[in-house]
């Protein structure tokens, strides 16, 4: 706000009568804002309170003889699954985003956008059931082939006979995070300054060269941010992994049963847990919370940095 308008507003404001209605309404609005802060603090505090017994307990009584030893393999499984999902989903998502923003007819683009949003709306339990019943059995031949031909790579060491592996779960996660990455990328691609695009075309660039030289550099921070948001979602995704994966102890083999993720571990064991086991699962949830928090903060930071870029036009 400029100095003049400030000076102009101030005397008027002073004359305004603070009516009770205004005070109440302002108070209510402020209280709601503070409620959000309280909820977030509450999430952290209550999780810590309920997880605390794990810290003081005798390590012998814990599942793997120590909370660290219990949760580390789970963290590894969670991260591996999410990173695979991210790596698979990102190119496809960027492709769709470019398709919508620069290739498809506007009307087609809108309906494609709606279809992608639809993908985001399908509940995760349905994805899980679909992955279990439809995708997993169809992955078996591929896994067999991978084992037979690339088995010397540890990741493809042995093939599952049911297809219910971390790899299958990761692919379903990839489908699930596709819409997030797509919509963030689409937004930034659409914001590419027209002048840049037309300048590139005027210089004789083909459409792809225009995208490579004008659209992608401009949208890159947004794509990275969207990817990180997708990663955050994949890290916390529960039901799809809980239903599809045939979990077990940690293993590097991705196309056989084994591994687990934190959310799946919680969902599978929580309904029948009690006592120390309950605290242990809540502790695992706390760890998940911290990991997703870190990833999301990073994503926000990257997306926020883009604001400096777009100042250019």
């Amino acid at each position, binding site marked *: 706000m400029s100095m003049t308008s400030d000076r102009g507003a101030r005397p008027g404001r002073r004359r305004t009568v603070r009516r009770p209605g205004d005070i109440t309404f302002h108070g209510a609005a402020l209280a709601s804002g503070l409620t959000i802060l309280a909820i977030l603090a509450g999430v952290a505090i209550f999780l810590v309170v309920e997880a605390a017994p794990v810290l003081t307990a005798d390590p012998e009584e814990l599942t793997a003889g120590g909370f660290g030893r219990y949760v580390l393999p789970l963290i590894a499984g969670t991260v591996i699954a999410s990173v695979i999902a991210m790596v698979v989903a990102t190119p496809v998502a960027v492709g769709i985003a470019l398709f919508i923003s620069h290739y498809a007819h506007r009307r087609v683009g809108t309906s494609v956008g709606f279809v992608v949003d639809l993908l985001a709306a399908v509940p995760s339990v349905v994805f899980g059931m679909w992955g279990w019943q439809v995708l997993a059995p169809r992955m078996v031949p591929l896994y067999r082939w991978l084992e037979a031909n690339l088995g010397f790579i540890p990741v493809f060491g042995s093939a599952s*006979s*049911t297809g219910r592996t971390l790899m299958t779960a990761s692919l379903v996660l990839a489908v699930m995070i596709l819409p997030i990455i797509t919509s963030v990328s689409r937004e930034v691609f659409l914001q590419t300054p027209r002048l840049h695009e037309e300048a590139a075309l005027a210089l004789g660039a083909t459409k792809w060269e225009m995208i490579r030289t004008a659209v992608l550099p401009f949208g890159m921070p947004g794509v990275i941010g969207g990817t990180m948001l997708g990663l955050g979602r994949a890290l916390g995704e529960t039901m799809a992994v809980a239903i599809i994966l045939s979990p*077990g102890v940690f293993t590097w083999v991705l196309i056989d049963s*084994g591994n687990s993720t934190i959310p799946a571990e919680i969902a*599978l064991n929580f*309904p029948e847990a*009690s006592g120390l*086991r309950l605290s242990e699962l809540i502790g695992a949830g706390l760890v998940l919370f911290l990991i997703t928090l870190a990833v999301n903060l990073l994503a926000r930071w990257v997306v926020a940095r883009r604001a400096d870029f777009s100042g250019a036009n």
Partner: protein
Amino acid sequence: MLPARPLRAAVTTALAGLALVACGDDNPTARLQPGDVGAPASGGGDLTGTLTGSGSSAQESAQTAWIAGYQGRQPGVTVHYDSIGSGGGRENIIAGATDFAGSDAYLDQQERQEVRDSCGPKGAMNLPVYISPIAVPYNLPGVESLQLTPDVLAGIFNREISRWDDPAIAEDNPDEQLPDLPITAVNRSDESGTTENFLEYLTAAAPHAWPHEPGAAWPVEGGEAAAQTTGVIEVVSSTPGAIGYADASAIGTLQTAAIGVGEEFVTYSPEAAARVVDASEPVDTGVKGDLALDLARDTTESGAYPIVLVSYLIVCHHYEKPQTATLVQDYVGYIASEEGQATAAEAAGSAPISDRLRQRVLNSLELVTGGR
């Protein structure tokens, strides 16, 4: 004041929702004809009140059937059973939150002390009323019967024996043409009483071939894991070369392995499972009427099937409300009765308890008292 049209739409939706709430049917079994399987019985006694229990999920299907059956005998009584896991069930009865608990393990020393706060100075009794044989289903086209000694079984599940034509398996099955297939050993992915009992069996019966400690979670690395009993059954039936372990009730049409006991091989049957329970030693807990058992997993008794899960109902010696005491006696009495056991056998595939055990359960129930 507020935007009218969206608001009206929201109100209409809410009213439509309420209209839907008004016309549901919370008693679907009433639609069955009297001759149908699982149709509700009519008539009954005049007890009234509410009984709450929680615990073992192994008992869940049996409890559902018992509650449905009991409803026919005592329409005035409402029984709730929440399957939150054995540990949670024991916690709840110790805290006095429930009237009885279902548990796959009996109260341990410390819990026996703690339970006195809510159950009176005499403590609580563990009554074994649910015996579920754990079968070993396999999927080998062309192999009619499979005989496995405890050591071979342990070797298979420990992933040391990895092919079906392994000489160790062939030795016990001279008449069968064992295929050249890899073994897919399927275990439960979630923690369960079934896994715990299976592991306890392997530890007791094959101490040399099975190096792992028993626990609710599966200890061996690798191998195929599936969630819940259903998952195990699903994987075994869809995968040639698979072998697993599961509550016998869930086996359906799958073939099951005969397990080596002493010099013979025993296939699971309700009688064989009940026999091992009768052959087991009672635990001296110092509580009058307590029927906690240490299962004789390594039994050599002829015709006894040693891989079983025994689940208890834990009831207090003393309830503050006389009415609760009466209801507990009546409900648990029904569960232990021939009719109750038959109901569970039909619904959950459990093995009915023997007459001898039934008598002991009924005797223990006589000890339950109520009042201040």
